[in-house]
């Protein structure tokens, strides 16, 4: 399979699924007025934006955009806020978290705006750290859902979320191989397929869970 096609499929899935979840959360917010929903809206919207920016940066001829900074940091921070929200039970703590997320959105969006002039990563290590941090956060989210599923409440939603974020973390981890080793196209494609699978499970979880 063409690597570029798979990458576009992945980004497209990420963009559409994240956007779908964001819109559903936004609609639900007007019924429940829960800050948790706005946190989900902002996180998913940001993730969708990173995917969209990556598609544009990779495919639109003549546009020199270094969107990788925005892609890695934006996704890490967005998943990070989803992770932190899993520990917040009270409205008060969620409002504080939401405030910080709104504040953090400004420098994140500036990474997108400045992508035409953003430099390349200084070395492979820093690229690996930034890229790998997405996998780490997803793994932490997976751990949180799994521990809750095993110890507290065994719900269908919890199970699907565990599977989804495990798949995402594995997919992000496999990217690291492609950074350090040559001829890893097949690993890259496997990672992309796993991540697409994770995104589908994520969508099913939010819709049916």
């Amino acid at each position, binding site marked *: 399979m063409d690597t570029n096609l798979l990458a576009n499929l992945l980004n497209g899935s990420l963009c559409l699924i994240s956007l779908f979840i964001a819109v559903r*959360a936004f609609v639900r917010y007007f019924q*429940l*007025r829960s800050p948790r929903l706005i946190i989900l809206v902002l996180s998913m919207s940001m993730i969708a934006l990173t995917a969209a920016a990556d598609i544009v940066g990779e495919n639109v001829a003549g546009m020199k955009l270094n969107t990788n900074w925005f892609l890695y940091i934006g996704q890490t921070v967005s998943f990070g806020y989803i992770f932190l929200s899993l520990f917040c039970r009270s409205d008060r703590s969620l409002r504080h978290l939401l405030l910080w997320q709104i504040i953090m959105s400004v420098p994140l969006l500036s990474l997108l705006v400045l992508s035409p002039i953003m430099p390349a990563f200084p070395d492979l290590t820093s690229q690996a750290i930034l890229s790998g941090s997405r996998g780490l956060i997803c793994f932490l989210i997976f751990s949180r859902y799994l521990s809750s599923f095993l110890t507290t*409440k065994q719900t269908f*939603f919890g199970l699907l979320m565990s599977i989804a974020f495990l798949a995402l973390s594995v997919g992000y981890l496999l990217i690291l191989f492609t950074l350090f080793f040559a001829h890893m196209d097949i690993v890259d494609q496997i990672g992309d397929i796993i991540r697409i699978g994770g995104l589908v499970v994520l969508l099913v979880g939010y819709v049916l869970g």
Partner: protein
Amino acid sequence: MRLPRFSLSDNTSLRWKEDDLQHAILTQLSQATTTMHHIDEVFQWLVYMAVHRFGVQAAQVWAMQANSRGQLSPQLRSILCQQNLSIPHVIIDNAEVATVVGHLLSKRRHARLLLVDGHFPQYRSLLLKRYGLYYCAGIFVSGDMLLPPPQKSESTPQIATPLTMMLLLFFQHMPHKDVLPSVDNIVTQAVPIARARNFLLSATAPANPTLSNTQPLHPAFSELVACRVEDPMSNPISAAMVLPEAELRRVYAVINDRRDVAELSRLTNLDLKDLFQILQRLMSMQRIELHEPAGRLVEDLRIFSR
């Protein structure tokens, strides 16, 4: 209002005799009470004395007050602030301060002189400091006589309540070490003076709610604070999260872990009786919890159903 010529403040460099000052103040109070008609006027005199003679920036008298259903809650009886600081009364006369005072009163002892951070939540203490109120202490007084309801009638009927009050003092600077003992002595001596003038009633005990260290205070239903209960592990956008009835959704939407029942009633235009039913249903669905102002969880809302 006439008070002794000499005064004590943290800035004074005058030498004075502590006993003479207190004696003079109490003599003045005895004379002033001859023209008074209600205990609230004594409280006004006490806060005036604290502000104008002891360098207090703001003084309040809070007392536990029972309504006709026997539910106790802290009520502000008198307040005075130094005029030069232009302190809006709402800074120290609000539900949050009432909650703190209720907690202090429940301990049945003086509130130690501390920075306001030591008594109030962070947001409130920042606001107090902005208006130059850095320190706070409370003089606690209680007795077996009954405190009549306030002069100004409240919307809910109130009854005479066993005397449990606190003179809350706010300072801009650390007060002289003798200020608080002096004020304590004056306030303590003011009680028998007020009793002699029949501003305080004899206890008739059985029909009235009495306070003891073992009996928990039950605040009014309207003072309970509603908090949402959310499971972070559940699907936040699931249709099951949506409440089945519009009124439930309306009330749930305005709950933000800070608003008490009175404010919920105002925001939703529901009377307390209807709100009681709705909150009871939300509690049974485990969507909310209700807490007393002091933070204690309300396990059973039926105790407030009277």
